[in-house]
């Protein structure tokens, strides 16, 4: 590992029970580097011990264990009290929350007992009911920080901090039941939460003008609360448990808005209805990705392909349309159903085999997974197609998406103009909100 992973490595080792791990660090990252860098690393020093790298490796493998390294016993995390051991002014409380890494850097509403009690009026569920048994940001079991037995009250505390109203709480409980908005990766992912069905208008969420901007109270605070769950419920700490090299500005409110279903120009059914829910069900869809690209103009089918041409291979896509864009696609371009437009994108969004091979996601996951037993026939069929792809010349043009199902449409915005945006967001799940009322 490089110096940039040492603290994270120690933290993961601690979670696994290695009190004194023997970590040797390269002087700089080696992945995908050329000969010059490799020779510099091999002949360089281990920043942890200060020794020449190869000497440090040999020593780590041969030096006798110290008493501390032989130690057995127990490790512990501190017991988190229900009530914080602080009393103070507004400024003092804010400083305490900042110092203890409980915020996104912005001031929070102080979660007093009284305010949390008021927040809990937003649900019929008991404060001590467990919403999520485990809450963590990692993809593996290897040394991830994990919050345990997340209760309704714990979510309510965070809802207060984010500035939510009690009637937003069912949405937050639905989100909390599925975990944090994004996972820890060297890439800077963000979550997205899109609310569908009647609750959106009940709590005055915005699906029209500026719905993705910093204007609507419900949109802003629900998304912020979800993000704070990552910070507080599974200890998102940059450089330690969160390894996104840049972070992502969309994480501030987790790209949270309502789908526009009311505009009379919209020709297609809402997203949650397409996925099998009733129109009167309130549901939140959860997505994960990196960002959006926009185009504006008449030729919406072509622009859609253009805004999707940077979607990472193997990734799914969210196509964002205004109500007017959807209407024009139906009326002017003949896509009378979503399915027709989805098929058009699937057939016409392409890349070369080389672009696919150049993808970090393909190299890290798709190709290594070809060796593993497939969990079901559909995945095996997909893997067989990828094995065939590996035999093709690098300049062969192939489809960008594995199947039309990877392409999803969300309609949002007021509808005054013909915008389309392509987002490299995988659709992850739809969570019913009504059971959390």
């Amino acid at each position: 590992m490089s110096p940039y992973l040492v603290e994270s490595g120690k933290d993961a080792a601690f979670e696994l029970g290695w009190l004194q791990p023997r970590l040797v660090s390269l002087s700089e990252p080696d992945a995908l580097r050329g000969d010059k860098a490799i020779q510099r690393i091999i002949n360089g020093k281990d920043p942890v011990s200060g020794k020449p790298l190869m000497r440090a490796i040999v020593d780590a493998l041969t030096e006798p264990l110290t008493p501390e390294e032989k130690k057995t016993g127990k490790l512990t995390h501190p017991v988190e009290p229900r009530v914080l051991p602080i009393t103070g002014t507004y400024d003092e409380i804010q400083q305490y929350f900042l110092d203890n890494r409980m915020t996104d850097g912005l001031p929070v509403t102080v979660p007093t007992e009284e305010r949390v009690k008021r927040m809990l009026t937003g649900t019929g569920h008991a404060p001590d009911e467990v919403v999520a048994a485990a809450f963590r940001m990692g993809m593996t079991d290897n040394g991830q920080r994990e919050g345990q037995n997340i209760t309704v009250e714990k979510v309510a505390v965070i809802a207060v901090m984010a500035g939510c109203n009690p009637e937003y709480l069912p949405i937050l409980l639905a989100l909390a039941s599925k975990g944090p908005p994004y996972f820890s990766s060297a890439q800077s992912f963000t979550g997205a939460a899109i609310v569908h069905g009647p609750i959106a208008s009940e709590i005055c969420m915005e699906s029209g003008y500026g719905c993705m901007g910093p204007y609507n109270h419900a949109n802003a605070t629900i998304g912020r609360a979800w993000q704070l769950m990552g910070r507080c419920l599974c200890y998102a700490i940059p450089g330690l448990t969160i390894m996104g090299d840049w972070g992502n500005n969309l994480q501030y409110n987790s790209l949270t808005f309502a789908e526009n279903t009311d505009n009379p120009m919209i020709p297609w059914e809402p997203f949650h209805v397409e996925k099998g829910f009733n129109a009167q069900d309130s549901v939140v869809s959860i997505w994960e990705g990196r960002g959006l690209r926009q185009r504006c103009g008449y030729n919406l089918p072509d622009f859609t392909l253009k805004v999707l041409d940077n979607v990472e291979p193997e990734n799914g896509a969210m196509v964002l349309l205004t109500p007017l864009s959807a209407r024009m696609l139906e009326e002017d371009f003949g896509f009378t159903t979503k399915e027709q437009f989805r098929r058009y994108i699937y057939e016409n969004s392409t890349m070369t085999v080389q672009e696919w091979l150049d993808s970090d996601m393909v190299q890290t996951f798709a190709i290594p997974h070809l060796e593993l037993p497939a969990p079901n026939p559909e995945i095996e069929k997909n893997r067989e197609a990828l094995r065939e792809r590996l035999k093709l010349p690098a300049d062969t043009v192939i489809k960008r998406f594995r199947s039309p199902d990877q392409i999803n449409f969300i309609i949002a915005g007021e509808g005054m103009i013909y915008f389309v945006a392509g987002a490299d967001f995988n659709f992850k799940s739809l969570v019913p909100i009504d059971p959390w009322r």
Partner: protein
Amino acid sequence: MKRENPTLNDTIYKDVLNPLAQQKPEWDITPLVERPATLEGKTVYIINQRWGGTKAHEPLLLTMKKWLEENIHDIKVVYKVKKGSYAYNDSGLWQETGEKADAAIIGVPH
């Protein structure tokens, strides 16, 4: 940076609830395994865990293999690529390493 807000600071807040989740309260320390006194005459596994792809880390690991072979008498260095991505638990390889290797190096790219 310290901030001052005279109007809000008229109120003293108490009974502030904790937003932090409880992490696992207690778990076992795993002591390190005993080391061989020397790598001479020993078998060392170098394991590529494939973050970024098999080739991403291979040049460094193979250069390390060469260095060990050139600098340590009678060492046997076995280069292994684990199955699946870094997220997959290749229990077969971990078992083989425990049975056949005197020491192991697992490279984590980045």
